[in-house]
């Protein structure tokens, strides 16, 4: 057991995960952020993709203790006001998803990609999402949604990347924030997404 402090969706969080606990399990079990889905649990499906220090990563292939000091964004953190981000709205409008299992990973991968490549074309988007598996849609509706988001963001405000991009000034692998409250896990004053959502459906995947 090691005490760790990290920032999740903008709020400081602490925890004492076992070394073997993945970041995905820490987010779901310790922080009750069950929006991050676990499909294969060995890095093949992409459902658990989250953004760590600005990069999309598989949260099942990273230990929670390795996230100490990092800035993590999960699907809950994309639209803190409870609404939808640009990408989420575009995917909604494009009927991108069916069962919803791959959705959080697909969205987080697309958000990370579009924040670096706001004017990506279809081929680049297909390649960027090639590590995320969807068993319902056949992918076309997902690609349509991401393309629509790219189109809207370029047309409206070229400076604003689609979706919520993590703070580029966030330190990479910096030491834990000494000012962060300890033992308050998660911060009750945190925006929606960092705290357990009482309205969230029970975990039915496992």
């Amino acid at each position: 057991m090691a005490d760790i402090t990290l920032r999740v969706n903008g709020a400081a969080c602490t925890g004492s995960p076992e070394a073997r606990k993945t970041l995905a399990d820490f987010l779901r079990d310790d922080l009750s952020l069950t929006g991050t889905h676990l499909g294969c649990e060995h890095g093949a499906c992409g459902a658990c993709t989250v953004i760590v220090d600005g990069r999309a990563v598989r949260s099942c292939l990273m230990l929670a203790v390795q996230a100490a000091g990092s800035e993590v964004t999960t699907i809950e953190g994309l639209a803190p006001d409870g609404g939808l981000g640009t990408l989420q709205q575009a995917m909604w409008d494009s009927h991108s998803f069916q069962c919803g299992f791959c959705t959080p990973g697909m969205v987080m991968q697309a958000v990370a990609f579009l924040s670096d490549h706001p004017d990506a074309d279809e081929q680049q988007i297909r390649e960027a999402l090639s590590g995320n598996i969807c068993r319902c849609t056949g992918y076309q509706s997902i690609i349509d949604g991401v393309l629509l988001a790219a189109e809207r963001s370029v047309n409206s405000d070229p400076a604003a990347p689609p979706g919520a991009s993590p703070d580029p000034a966030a330190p990479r692998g910096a030491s834990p924030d000494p000012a962060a409250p300890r033992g308050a896990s998660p911060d009750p004053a945190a925006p929606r997404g960092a705290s357990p959502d009482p309205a969230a459906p029970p975990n039915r995947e496992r």
Partner: protein
Amino acid sequence: MKLPPVDYEAPETVSEAVELLAEHQDEASVLAGGQSLIPLLALRLAHPAVLIDINGIAELSGVSKTDGWVAIGAMTREYVAEESETIADDVPLLAAALPLIGHEAIRSRGTVGGSLAHADPAAELPAVARALDAEFVVRGPSGERVIPAAEWFEGFLTTSRRPDELLTEVRFPAVGPGTGTSFQEVARRHGDFAIVGLAASLTLSDGAIGDARLAFAGVSDVPVRARDAEDLLVGEAPSPQLFDQAAQRATDDIDPPADVHGSSEYRRKAAAALVRRGLRAAADNAGERQ
């Protein structure tokens, strides 16, 4: 699919890591990017007593060029290497192979040293290292040693690194004038391990091939150099007929594994096609670099 219980150490210097390796020997696994090791743990195919996490060792990351060699720190993430101008300019074969590794999210965490130390024979980087005669720098309790690529890969997921040694750096020779390179692979989908892969390098001078290098991924338990085909190419002028002969020669003696993705015979034919394609592409960009 949960990881087995395991102890965890996070050294901050190479010396500390080496001390820990000396203490735990083969009971320890070195955790770099974790994109292969963590699945092995999740699938309970690896059971180390202790993980030695080297992600906090700052001195292990970085790309630098000295004396005609490009040195890449073992913990340098694949996406960082992919974005490196030094690698793009001086080790174009490596630059061509990097985007083919896994997917974007895998390359966010995966490391150059980790892939080469894991030594999956179907992976891209081992074939590149073998083609270019890269050098592997390891540090152990008695100091540093440099291992040539020809001696690094010993078998399936097995290298000549001793249990108390840490891979700290991999050095690739910088490309010279007249050299063209190409990385080719056949994979079921983008990002999958290669069914067959090929790293190719050709150096042309005065219209003839001065140096030829061909290394396969996915045809054996280690990356394989096609020495006979290389010998056949040297001294000749590039031509489609010559590349056909080289493809034949390169695949005469290989005995690729068969699995659900392809039979041994399919892999041999795919390998021959990759030799033709790789040589054509390498010859084309060798011409451009002159």
